[in-house]
C-alpha cells in the first residue's frame, strides 16, 4: 500500500511548524500505524534528512505514550484503540493521511508530533494518590470491596493517561482524565481519607494548567482508547459539589 502523509513538522517549541507532505511507499496492510512511521523514518534517515519525532513506548495499547491525531481524530478512526494498535488495513491504498500532535495550551509541542504532557503529572501530584503505610504488602482480602464498586473503580482505572480526551475536546478540557482518576479512588475504601480534598485539589490544578472547560459534547469518550465513559465526569461533578 502507498499513502500520502501530511505530517506536522516543528523544529522545537520556539519555532513555528507546518504540515509537510511525505510519501509512504510499500506499506503492508498488517503494519501498525507506528510501524508505518518507522518505515518512513528509515527512508528519511537513509536520505540524510531528519526523521519524524513521535512518542511511543509499549506499542501494545497499555502505556498511553503514543499521541497522534490522525485525520482530525486522536488515535485515528478505530474506536477504543490507541494509535499503536491501529493497523494500516483500516485505510485505503492511496489515502492522504494528516498527522498532527495533540493540540492544547497545556500540552506544548516539544518537536514534530511530540508534546509535553507533564501537566497531567502535576494534576496527579496534586491529589491523585492514596496515603498508605509502607512496608510489606497488605493481605489482599483484608479490605472487602463490593462487586459493583470494584467494577466501577476498575473501569475508571483503565485510564492510561494518554491525553486523547484533551486532544479531542473542542475546549481542550482535561475533565475525562481527571474524572477517571477521581472516580477510581472515590469508589474504593482506600481512597476515602483524602476524598473531599482530592477532588478540590485536582480540579484546582487542572484549572491552573490552562485546560478548557467541559461543555458536555462527549468527544473525549468517543476517542478514549480505553473507552472510559463520561459517567465519570458526572461522578466527579457530584464529588466536587459535595466536597
Amino acid at each position: 500500500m502507498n499513502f500520502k502523509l501530511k505530517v506536522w513538522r516543528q523544529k522545537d517549541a520556539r519555532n513555528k511548524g507546518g504540515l509537510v507532505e511525505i510519501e509512504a511507499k510499500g506499506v503492508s496492510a498488517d503494519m501498525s500505524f507506528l510501524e508505518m512511521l518507522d518505515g518512513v523514518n528509515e527512508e528519511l534517515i537513509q536520505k540524510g534528512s531528519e526523521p519524524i519525532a513521535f512518542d511511543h513506548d509499549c506499542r501494545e495499547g497499555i502505556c498511553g505514550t503514543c499521541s497522534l491525531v490522525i485525520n482530525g481524530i486522536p488515535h485515528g478512526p478505530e474506536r477504543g484503540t490507541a494509535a499503536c494498535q491501529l493497523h494500516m488495513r483500516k485505510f485505503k491504498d492511496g489515502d492522504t493521511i494528516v498527522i498532527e500532535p495533540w493540540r492544547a495550551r497545556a500540552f506544548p509541542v516539544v518537536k514534530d508530533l511530540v508534546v509535553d504532557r507533564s501537566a497531567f503529572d502535576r494534576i496527579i501530584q496534586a491529589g491523585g494518590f492514596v496515603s498508605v503505610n509502607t512496608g510489606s504488602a497488605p493481605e489482599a482480602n483484608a479490605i472487602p470491596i463490593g462487586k459493583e464498586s470494584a467494577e466501577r473503580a476498575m473501569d475508571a482505572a483503565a485510564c492510561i493517561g494518554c491525553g486523547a480526551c484533551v486532544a479531542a475536546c473542542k475546549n481542550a478540557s482535561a475533565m475525562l482524565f481527571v474524572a477517571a482518576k477521581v472516580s477510581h479512588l472515590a469508589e474504593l475504601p482506600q481512597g476515602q481519607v483524602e476524598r473531599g480534598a482530592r477532588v478540590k485539589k485536582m480540579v484546582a490544578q487542572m484549572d491552573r494548567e490552562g485546560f478548557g472547560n467541559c461543555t458536555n459534547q462527549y468527544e473525549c469518550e468517543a476517542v478514549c482508547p480505553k473507552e472510559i465513559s463520561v459517567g465519570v465526569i458526572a461522578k466527579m461533578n457530584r464529588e466536587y459539589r459535595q466536597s
Partner: protein
Amino acid sequence: MVVAVTGLVLFIFVIFHMLGNLQIFLGADALNDYARHLDELPYLLWPARAVLLAALLLHVGFSLALANENRRARPVRYVHGDTVQASRASRTMVITGLVILFFIIYHLLHFTFGVTNPEFFHLTDAKGREDIYSMVVLSFQNGWIAGTYILAMFFLCLHLGHGVSSVPQSLGFSESSGLRKNFGRFGNLAGVLVFIGNSSIVLAVLLGKLK
C-alpha cells in the same frame, strides 16, 4: 455549575411563559384576564422578574467567560479537525445563545415596554383591561415580526436541546449511560415542544385562525 443552575431557572421560566401564552387559544377574555392577574400580584411578579434577570445575567456572563477560556485553551488549532459525536447544537451554543439574548431584548422592547410597535400597545378591551390579545394578534399579522419570532424559537429549540440535556451531567446526576440517554431525549423533546408551542401562536395568527 452556575451556567447549569441558571439555565435550569430560565428553562422553567420558558415553560411557564409558554403555558401562559397558550391561553391565547382560550380567547381574548382568558388571556387578558391572566395578564391582569399577574399584574395584581406585584409581590410575586417583581421578585420573579428580579430572579430571572439575575439568572439571565449570570448565565450569559459565565457562559461567555467560559467560552473565552475554552478558546484560549487551544491557541494553535488543528489544520485538519474532525468531530466524532458532538452534536451541531452543542457546538453552536454561544451563537444560538447570543441570538436568543438579542431576541429577548427585542421581545421586551416589543411586548413589555412597547417601544418597537407603540401603536399596538396600551389598547384596552371591552372590560377596560389592557388588551394583550389584540396586541399579540395585530403584531403577528406582520410577516416580518412573525418570521423573527419563529426563527428565534428555532434557535431556542437548538439551545434547549443541548442545554437541558447537559444540566444533570454538570450537576452530577447522570452517571449511568441509560440516564444520560434519557436526559438527552428529554432535552431534545423539551426544545421541540417549546418550538411547537410558541410557534403555534404565531402560525395561528398568520393563518387567520386567531383574529
